[in-house]
């Protein structure tokens, strides 16, 4: 019966099913590689990436994000495609994926292809199909645009190696932050199996860098690097655990990006959090991205931002303000003397403004007015800074006092989370945001 449906299904229906099933993957970026077209085919890549449209949820559409198949032999509890779900199953052929990619690309709908997949028969079997697709796209269609492909854990190293030479970015989904979470919700997967291909890709990338030094024209292995994603809010991990995992992925696996995906309930299952009608935990996701940013660009370590006693981010303050308030003994900072790393830690000073300050103060002493021109957000920074020994206003270096004032200045949340209601915020009470913590702030 299922076979029959598959044969008769139109391209339109297949695309509906296989994009609908792929939409929960959060990574949609075409960045990380600069490549001009060579004049013999179609496509190029830009390091900063391009976005071609924005869907109704406000997310950027830059890649044709699809599954090769939504058939799956596994039964991950959070996934719409799990084997125990009764959903219509279908698969593309390599030719169909190539046609869609090429025709969408020609019309400037997309930057390239994001190909993920359920597991048909076995990891190797599925990955061979994906390889055949990419091979055709690159070598027969001569497509030179962006390709992001998922590596399926359990695939042979040799096969992954071949795929990596055709893709720009590869990612292996971590799925859930801890091995325990994985055991609960993805009974067919395990941590070791997921980390193995990550390590393999990392090693292959390092080798490839050396090959390129020796032979300038050596083929490139995932030139835009590898990324991963994990689901936030399906299992009871704390922000502290999640951030620690992210940190070790950056340090030990050399990942380009870690993506966080607020859990969206698609299945009813006793192992999953009950559906609340509150929607996915978008603010929590946002705080994790902010903290991730601090790890990657602000030289923070996970254990500085959170600890066992305070394992979750403050819902009212961004992680950097939160850190500063807990470390008032290090403030105020003198703008004209503080070293670069310390400047980076001041709320309201970003990477660019810190760099500008370091450059500009060589020419003479800086005043508060100058800071404004350099992009410093004074309404946050003023509590933590002195210029020539003076604070901007007569402010107190006191946690409650500053907290109150910072809360009054209203953080500008991105549109993606500011649509939330108070009811949604209260969701965090269930997630270890103890009453005392909120009580403290209000």
């Amino acid at each position, binding site marked *: 019966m299922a076979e029959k449906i598959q044969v008769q299904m139109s391209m339109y229906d297949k695309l509906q099913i296989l994009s609908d099933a792929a939409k929960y993957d959060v990574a949609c970026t075409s960045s990380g590689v600069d490549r001009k077209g060579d004049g013999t085919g179609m496509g190029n890549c830009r390091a900063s990436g391009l976005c071609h449209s924005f869907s109704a949820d406000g997310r*950027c559409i830059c890649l044709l994000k699809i599954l090769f198949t939504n058939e799956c032999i596994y039964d991950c509890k959070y996934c719409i495609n799990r084997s125990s779900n009764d959903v219509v199953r279908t698969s593309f052929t390599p030719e169909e994926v190539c046609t869609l990619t090429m025709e969408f690309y*020609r019309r400037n709908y997309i930057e390239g292809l994001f190909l993920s997949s359920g597991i048909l028969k076995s990891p190797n079997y599925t990955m061979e199909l994906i390889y055949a697709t990419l091979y055709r796209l690159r070598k027969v269609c001569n497509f030179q645009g962006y390709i992001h492909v998922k590596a399926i854990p359990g695939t042979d190293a040799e096969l992954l190696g071949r795929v990596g030479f055709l893709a720009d970015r590869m990612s292996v989904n971590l799925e859930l932050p801890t091995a325990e979470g994985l055991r609960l919700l993805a009974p067919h997967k395990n941590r070791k199996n997921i980390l193995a291909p990550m390590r393999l890709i990392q090693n292959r990338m390092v080798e490839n860098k050396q090959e390129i030094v020796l032979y300038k024209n050596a083929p490139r292995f995932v030139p835009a690097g590898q990324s991963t994603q994990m689901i936030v809010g399906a299992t009871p991990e704390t922000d502290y655990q999640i951030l620690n995992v992210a940190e070790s992925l950056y340090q030990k696996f050399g990942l380009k990006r870690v993506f966080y995906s607020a859990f969206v309930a698609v299945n009813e299952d006793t192992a999953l959090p009950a559906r609340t009608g509150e929607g996915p935990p978008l603010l929590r996701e946002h705080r994790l991205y902010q903290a991730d940013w601090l790890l990657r660009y602000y030289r923070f370590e996970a254990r500085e931002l959170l600890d066992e006693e305070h394992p979750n981010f403050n819902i009212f303050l961004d992680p950097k303000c939160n850190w500063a308030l807990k470390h008032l003994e290090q403030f105020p900072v003198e703008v004209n003397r503080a070293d670069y790393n310390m400047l980076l830690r001041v709320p309201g000073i970003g990477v660019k403004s810190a760099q500008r300050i370091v450059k500009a103060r060589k020419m003479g002493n800086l005043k508060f007015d100058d800071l404004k021109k350099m992009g410093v957000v004074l309404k946050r920074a003023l509590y933590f800074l002195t210029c020539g020994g003076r604070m901007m206003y007569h402010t107190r270096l006191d946690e409650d006092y500053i907290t109150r004032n910072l809360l009054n200045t209203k953080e500008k949340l991105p549109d993606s989370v500011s649509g939330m209601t108070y009811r949604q915020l209260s969701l965090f009470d269930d997630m270890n945001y103890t009453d005392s913590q909120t009580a403290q702030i209000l």
Partner: protein
Amino acid sequence: MKKVYICNDTITGIFSAIYDAWKESRDKEAGIELRGKLDTQLFCEYTEVVEEERKAAAVEKLIQKHLGYNTYWDIYHALLSEHPKKAEAVFHVMQTARTVGNSKKVMDHLSNPDVALVFELSRKAANEAHQFMEFIRFRELEHGILFSEITPKNRILTCIGDHFTDRFPLEDWMVYDKTHQEFLVHCAKHPWILVSGECLNREEAEKISKAEAEFERLWKGFFQSISIKERENPICQRTHLPIHFRQDMTEFC
């Protein structure tokens, strides 16, 4: 009496005016007005500029050599705007450059109103050009030509030519700027050219290929199904993709 040069609103026209003004009035107060956007004042001497490629080329070289490539880039982009004072502001920036220590850094003097205007116009045009690289949609016409219509505020066609030429070297494609009635035309394996003074043959432009309607339908379907219902957020969508662009985009039509 203050001299005012009148020219056509094209790069060649404006550069020709700057050429004349630079020759005769670089040390004096002088203005440049655009034909069709004229703002006549008393006590000015108006002269019509004779437009010449030779003059334009000389000014281009002059700016690049003395003000550097980055300044040239800003000037070029500013001149793609619709602002009536853009040409005059550029001329004044060139005059200002002679008075500052390092004329290649003239664009850093943002407290000067002419510099500020050129800077702002340039940023706006460049941003718009970038947005069109992303939001342009092509449709396939009967003979396989890819055709696109856009409604830009600035004359950005020349800014996107290289991008699409590199991207689609083997395709015949054409972008029609409805606001300024100009065409960016690319024939397979050739460099792009800018065509103005031609009219669009509406009837031909509507003759889409056999496959076209189906790919549009597929794309629209994809556009719907890729959105996560639980996260829907039209405000966020509008911030990133302003309504203005949507009139020419397949997925919104």
